[in-house]
């Protein structure tokens, strides 16, 4: 009876700890997923899948200092799976902020560039898109991205390089279109 009680107590403690962890991580995880996937529903699914995976692997983690990095990898993998799953599905990309801060230079050109960037970002393949989001939204360094994705640093650098090149081409093409 005592053993049963201890097992139940341990399970309850695990659930409470997981709930606290989930609450702490949820908003940031959902935001990153939304940036990567560009769709609130997909972001919701990917985030939920990541937490389900995290709960299933909860017992395998022993080092509390590494929980964020560990979950970060799970989240990135979840987003990657969603990106690959929908590769053939056409996406409607809704872009552009409508608000500009006062006293900022060329609003129209800036806004057009951001629109073109958003379109270009949506066209990137899954791996390049992940690299860009992790580098320029999550502010991770190349070694951190490598740790998060499990790719060699050289691969990360190469994917970042090609992704930025593709984005520049998209923006330049858009500028040419505007000039015509």
């Amino acid at each position, binding site marked *: 009876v005592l053993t049963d009680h201890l097992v139940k107590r341990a*399970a309850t403690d695990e659930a409470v700890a997981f709930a606290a962890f989930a*609450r702490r991580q949820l908003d940031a995880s959902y935001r990153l997923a939304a*940036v990567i996937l560009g769709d*609130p529903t997909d972001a919701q699914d990917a985030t939920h899948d990541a937490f389900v995976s995290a709960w299933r692997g909860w017992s395998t983690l022993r080092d509390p200092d590494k929980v964020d990095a560990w979950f970060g990898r799970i989240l990135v993998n979840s987003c990657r799976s969603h990106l690959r799953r929908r590769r053939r599905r056409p996406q409607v990309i809704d872009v*552009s*902020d409508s*608000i500009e*801060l*006062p006293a900022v230079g060329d609003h129209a050109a*800036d806004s057009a560039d951001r629109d073109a960037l958003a379109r270009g970002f949506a066209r990137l393949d899954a791996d390049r898109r992940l690299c860009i989001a992790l580098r320029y939204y999550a502010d991770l360094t190349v070694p951190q991205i490598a740790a998060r994705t499990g790719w060699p640093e050289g691969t990360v650098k190469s994917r970042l390089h090609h992704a930025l090149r593709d984005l520049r081409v998209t923006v330049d093409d858009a500028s040419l279109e505007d000039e015509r």
Partner: protein
Amino acid sequence: MNERQLREMLAGRAPVVAPPELLAMVEAIPATAAIPTTSRWLPVWRPQRRAVVVGLAALVLLASLLAVVIGSQLITRPPGLPGNGVIVVPVQGTLLVVDPATGETVSSGDQLGVGGLTSLGSGVFGEYNSVHWSPDGRSLAGFNRGDLKIVDVESGRVRTMAKLQGCLLGFGRCDVAYSPDGRWMAVTDGTRLNLVDTATGGGYKLRTLGDAAGSPAWSPDSRQIAVSGPGTFYVIDLAGTIVSRPAATGNKLPLEGLSWSPDGSRLGYLRFVGGDANTPSDILLVTVRPDGTDERVIAQVGTCFCVGWGPPGFTWSPDGRQLAFVTLNFPTNGSAKGSVNNVDGELYVANADGSHMRLLTTGVPGGNPAWQPIR
């Protein structure tokens, strides 16, 4: 392309918070997925500790309530500032300030030197735009064309918080509403719902809604925003998801004065019934549940040709016990179209159920009332 633009584009794709249903789903995972075996490194709230914390929190809450009750007896309010604050109505570029207890016009025009309001220059806000109080009752926000203006009502200082492209050329009417927690301003420009960070002025588009998106109203918990549409309204969460969109009733004129009751149980607004090019629409003041059910017609508050006209408006008092609304009465032969002098507009207050309706002032040709929170 530069790095700043790339970072801004990515940040613009990020919603503010996760939708509440996702939190509920994630919290339910331990109950529905396989239970893991033990690992003991995360801090755990033990039941005994929780009981102590809940007890302490209850004591602190009780002490705070007592302090508020005692403090409210001691505060000396500025002269002219009644218990629930003043009602401000934008009238053709100036602000009409009315004491809801007495109906006395505290001031209007350039100098609002009574009740803690000083020197609000005319022309700060545009002609047909609404204004909205900050949750602390110390500043008013509103639009002048595309500029989102914030006015400190004590110092009279005016600053431009942001610019909204949709309003620059006067295509759309721009409306603004502070979130009750003071963190955000919801801004509509006729087609889109945007959020502006009150701390930084940075903004982004939350959702494109199509024609007639306006009159934003926050839920009291600052987690949802109601926005008017053609003959209906949308309730949208901070992830940009539409939570409810009831079927349109009446005609397709956009609802006006959308306002969430302070207890969060109902939305109130003005909707329009009937009317055509020569006959004005009837204006109904109604309240509904946030999902659009259980509509109650509180009063018929006049008639108007409300296209291209400063529309009437509505708001709850900060304590939710009263309503304030502007009525309009256009002559039925259509002669008032385009002539403000022929329109009979009045500001009323009533109990929340519509009883004890009292006329506060006349000569209000449209405008959305904003009721100042207690400071």
